[in-house]
């Protein structure tokens, strides 16, 4: 059996989760502190990928990154490679799609933070970065972890935008979800079922992890 789709899915989901971990936290931290009106507008924009059909996200990405479009053409001209139809092209799709999951859970966690802890840290002379990483993040860690795991799970299952921007090339851009579709289309039912079962097993483990994290959070750490 060719394990490439599993490897590819895991690395795409892993890399995009790492990216979105920092970007999502950064956005959540600053937007949680923003004035109401700004918050409302940014919230809508940043949550949009969650409700848009993945094909719409894929379309929009192709409009920007396609070899004849603004950024895609510039990269092709300067660096000499295409941004679409490679295995890492899928990372663009998954990061956009999973961003709202990370952003929203992290923001919820930051909003529940007791701000007097940060104030007391400041009056004690602690650096703001220390307060962020050693006091604020540990305080919010369960919410942030849950968001990260959820984002990873969603990235693993991304199909629509990925298939548009990375396509399906066996051994090059194939992921679990695109492989299942391809195998089903070509009537290889047994192989499709195998990948379905693998995917379900991974997703079950991930959701179990989310549940355990949420339970721990309710129990109070």
């Amino acid at each position, binding site marked *: 059996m060719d394990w490439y789709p599993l490897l590819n899915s895991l690395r795409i989901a892993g890399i995009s989760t790492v990216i979105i971990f920092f970007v999502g936290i950064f956005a959540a931290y600053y937007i949680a502190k923003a004035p109401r009106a700004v918050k409302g507008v940014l919230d809508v924009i940043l949550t949009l990928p969650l409700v848009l059909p993945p094909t719409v996200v894929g379309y929009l990405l192709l409009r920007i990154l396609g070899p004849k479009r603004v950024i895609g053409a510039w990269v092709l001209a300067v660096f000499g490679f295409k941004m679409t139809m490679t295995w890492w092209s899928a990372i663009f799709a998954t990061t956009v799609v999973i961003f709202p999951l990370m952003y929203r859970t992290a923001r919820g966690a930051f909003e529940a933070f*007791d701000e*007097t*802890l940060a*104030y*007391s*840290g*400041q*009056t*004690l*002379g*602690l*650096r703001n970065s220390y307060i962020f990483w*050693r*006091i604020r993040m*540990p*305080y919010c860690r369960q919410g942030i972890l849950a968001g990260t795991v959820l984002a990873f799970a969603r990235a693993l299952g991304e199909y629509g935008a990925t298939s548009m921007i990375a396509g399906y090339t066996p051994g090059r851009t194939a992921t679990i979800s695109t492989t299942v579709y391809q195998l089903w289309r070509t009537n290889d039912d047994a192989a499709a079922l195998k990948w379905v079962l693998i995917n379900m097993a991974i997703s079950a483990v991930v959701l179990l992890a989310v549940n355990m994290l949420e339970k721990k959070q309710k129990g*109070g*750490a």
Partner: protein
Amino acid sequence: MALLVDIEKKLRDFSLKVSFEADREVLALLGASGCGKSMTLKCIAGIEKPDQGRIELDGVVLFDSEKHISLPPQQRKVGYLFQQYALFPNMTVTQNIRCGIRDKKRAAEILPEIIAAMHLTGLEEAHPNRLSGGQQQRVALARILVNEPQLLLLDEPFSALDSQLRFQLEEELRRTIARFGKTVLLVSHNRDEVFRLADRIAVMNRGLVEVCASKKALFAEPLTRTGAFLTGCQNISSLEKLPDGRIRAVDWGVNLTPPREADSASFVGIRMQDIRPAGPGEKGNNILFCRVEEEIENPFSVTVMLRCGEKSTALLGWELDKETWSALRGETVCIRLPEESLLLLEE
């Protein structure tokens, strides 16, 4: 003066305009909740920024709107004891206190010392959620003391505690303050607490410091209505000056002889404990014949609610010991409001 505060800040319902000075003493900010006490502390600590003004501590300018100086809270050397103590929940007692030590090289020498001094031995590895309210306060104070601040801000230090614990902790805090020996600002709405802990008291109302005086002077002569109310004077009536130099207490519906010229005073007050019984046929000023409307029994005393005049809109409360009351008890009672006990108050 060790501390000089003169700031203005626009808040949602009113403007904060606070101006006071404090030496090496305990100055209490006494005021109802929402009067701007905590906001004042936050401005001094650098957590909030005043719109304009100046804050100076031991000759160092912490804030000056004209010179565009605003030191970050990290550099102000101000210790802030928060209402809920704000211990870091993910750290042990030792780690929490360690956060306060600025020169980490000295931690090994400072930590055991402060842990013993604050009676925290045996709790070194405990997390804050395992500690009692009193222990949490001691950890928070230890963390502040090792930070070696020049000024200590105490924000309602006992509000998170059971009443039984309060007295004991007040005693401990008094000792900590004495050991600290520098300027302390205490924010509270509890007059007893303030009287026992502070040297001077600033009465705050809707963002303004109305009176700033020594505690004895303030309790003897609160000067303003808010001051009288916050120092525990429950009987307050609006006042009208009469042509003969006497005054009319409008709410109580009676005419009284004041201790001095009423001048610009617009209210008169008397503490519940300062009312005296009047014997039958007793002559003198301010003797009132009252109807007893209600009797409220306290653990060690009685509060009697009295109607003094036909047109009175407010009852007069009188607190006296149980034996005296059982001898006087009846549907009516004769009382005297001693002139020297009447408080003439401005709005």
